[in-house]
């Protein structure tokens, strides 16, 4: 997704055709996915404890991990075959149709923009909390974060992304250091899980709380599917995408389990469920200034890395909509010098700023999660249609995921549970967002679609799909 900025988007500049370079390997794919997602360990997942208790947060960590494993399996097959920039957007164009592609791009834009908003709020609040100065607000830090990162993306982000990989690694290592510093094999010295998660409070709302917790369980992994955005830039999609994505999932599962174990063993679930920085708080509660400062810095770095990747991905999806004329083609301009989708970056900047100032953290996260779950629902149906329209053997697949259709069914069922979970506490937001997507779809289908070139929407060298 990200190297596209420097390597150039497929467009014509001064008569030269600029195309994407195949320079990425599995490690880059891993870094792309984990870089955006890791901030979820630093904030957001813990709201699952608020909705269902500490044990519910652990249960959904694993069950939602299964959801994302299904996402990764499905994505790896489709993307290694539809090796086009845009990830799920390109998949939808080739398998379902333009309107679905339009919606999927919007899901991507909103999931990533609201994730960026969440990152900026987290960063601002963390700095304000650390400063402890009376009257200091997070607004200036939020604005500076969003504007500076947008500017970096405007200028080209290859260097920024290299830095991104490093700071993501530092943030990840900080979780590992915290885990081993608190003697995880010994209870009672630092960690007190048995005294904090008791039979009486493990599931304070019962099993309905576990279902409700699915909503924020998504936050452990939201964004890992962004690895597919790099499909045109990896040297070997068939090898790099499955390996990179699955390695990213394994990494995140390990980080999520360590994070839960340490945090649930250090603070009561009522506090864990409302704090904006559970890992930093965990660092504080160990009593070690070194760990406290390490986790403070890691929280900032994780937020920065994630926000940077989100600006990049959201702008790319918006750019794609302009390039295919799903939105005014004005958005499809590439900067003549920096080769970035600069108009899309600038367009999304005030939207991110506005919501960073009017939404609070869990509202912004919910907006992001909603768009993510709508996208996963599409993916579960998309893979069924893909296998039906081009059965195995009819086209060359880079990777064929096993156990089909089980992952698709699991994914679909877990999405339905998550919709119900969002309904439990955030139902009005869900309805408002769905109504928005419905109305904007009507606008596209009955008005905007007339500007779209029909045949150009299918660019893969495949035979005609079965049934058409």
């Amino acid at each position: 997704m990200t190297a596209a900025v420097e390597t150039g988007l497929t467009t014509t500049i001064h008569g030269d055709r600029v195309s994407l370079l195949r320079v990425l390997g599995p490690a880059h794919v891993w870094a792309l996915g984990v870089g955006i997602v890791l901030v979820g360990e630093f904030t957001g997942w813990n709201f699952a404890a608020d909705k269902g208790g500490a044990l519910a947060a652990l249960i959904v960590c694993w069950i939602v991990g299964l959801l994302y494993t299904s996402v990764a399996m499905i994505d790896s097959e489709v993307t290694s075959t539809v090796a086009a920039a845009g990830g799920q957007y390109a998949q939808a164009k080739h398998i379902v149709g333009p309107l679905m592609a339009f919606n999927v791009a919007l899901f991507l834009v909103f999931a990533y923009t609201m994730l960026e908003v969440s990152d900026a709020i987290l960063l601002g609040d963390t700095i304000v909390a650390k400063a402890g100065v009376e009257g200091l607000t997070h607004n200036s830090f939020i604005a500076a974060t969003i504007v500076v990162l947008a500017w970096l993306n405007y200028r080209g982000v290859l260097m920024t992304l290299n830095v991104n990989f490093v700071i993501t690694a530092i943030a990840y290592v900080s979780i590992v250091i915290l885990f081993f510093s608190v003697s995880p094999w010994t209870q009672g010295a630092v960690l007190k899980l048995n005294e904090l998660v008791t039979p009486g409070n493990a599931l304070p709302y019962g099993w309905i709380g576990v279902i409700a917790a699915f909503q924020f369980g998504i936050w452990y992994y939201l964004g890992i599917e962004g690895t597919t955005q790099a499909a045109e830039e990896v040297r070997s999609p068939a090898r790099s995408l499955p390996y990179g994505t699955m390695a990213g999932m394994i990494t995140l599962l390990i980080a999520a389990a360590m994070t839960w174990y340490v945090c649930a063993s250090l603070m009561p679930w009522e506090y864990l469920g409302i704090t904006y920085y559970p890992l930093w708080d965990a660092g504080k509660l160990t009593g070690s200034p070194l760990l406290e400062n390490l986790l403070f810095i890691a929280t900032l770095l994780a937020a920065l890395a994630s926000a940077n990747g989100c600006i990049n991905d959201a702008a790319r999806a918006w750019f794609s909509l302009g390039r295919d004329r799903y939105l005014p083609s004005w958005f499809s301009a590439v900067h003549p010098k920096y080769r970035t989708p600069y108009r899309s970056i600038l367009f999304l900047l005030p939207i991110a700023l506005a919501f960073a100032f009017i939404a609070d953290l869990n509202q912004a996260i919910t907006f992001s999660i909603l768009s993510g779950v709508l996208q996963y629902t599409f993916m579960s149906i998309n893979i069924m249609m893909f296998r039906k329209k081009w059965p195995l053997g009819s086209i060359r697949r880079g990777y064929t995921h096993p156990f089909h259709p089980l992952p698709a069914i699991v994914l679909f069922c877990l999405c339905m549970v998550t919709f119900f979970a969002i309904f439990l506490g955030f139902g009005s937001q869900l309805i408002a967002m769905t109504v928005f997507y419905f109305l904007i779809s009507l606008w596209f289908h009955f008005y905007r679609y007339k500007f779209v070139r029909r045949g150009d929407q299918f660019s893969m060298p495949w035979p005609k799909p079965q049934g058409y």
Partner: protein
Amino acid sequence: MARYNPPEQSKAGQVFDIAVVVVAIFVALWLPLKLGLAGAAKSIDPLDAKTWDALGQNATMASIWEKLGYTPETAHDIIQNRFHYIIDWPTLIIMAIVLIAYFVFLFRASDKEYREVINEKFDDK
């Protein structure tokens, strides 16, 4: 099938479409916030006796709260602020209908458009 040539959109038309999209985004995302419809549906179950014991906190929990700078009085509104998971069936049914209608429209309308794409793509050859 004859190749479809879309009309060129004027600059004014593009600006208008951008405005429509911006308004739609803000209405969808901002309005629920403005109307107080977004965010967690929680409420505080107040307690008369504000002690760690009454708040259901054992000695370990109480010591952590205190380490975090809380007293039973200041922690009361956090601990007692709870979700009340009562399923509002009419709202749930409305949500299900909206979601199903959205996806049904999405797949049916997409399929109609997709057939045009496939016809033009493959009939050209």
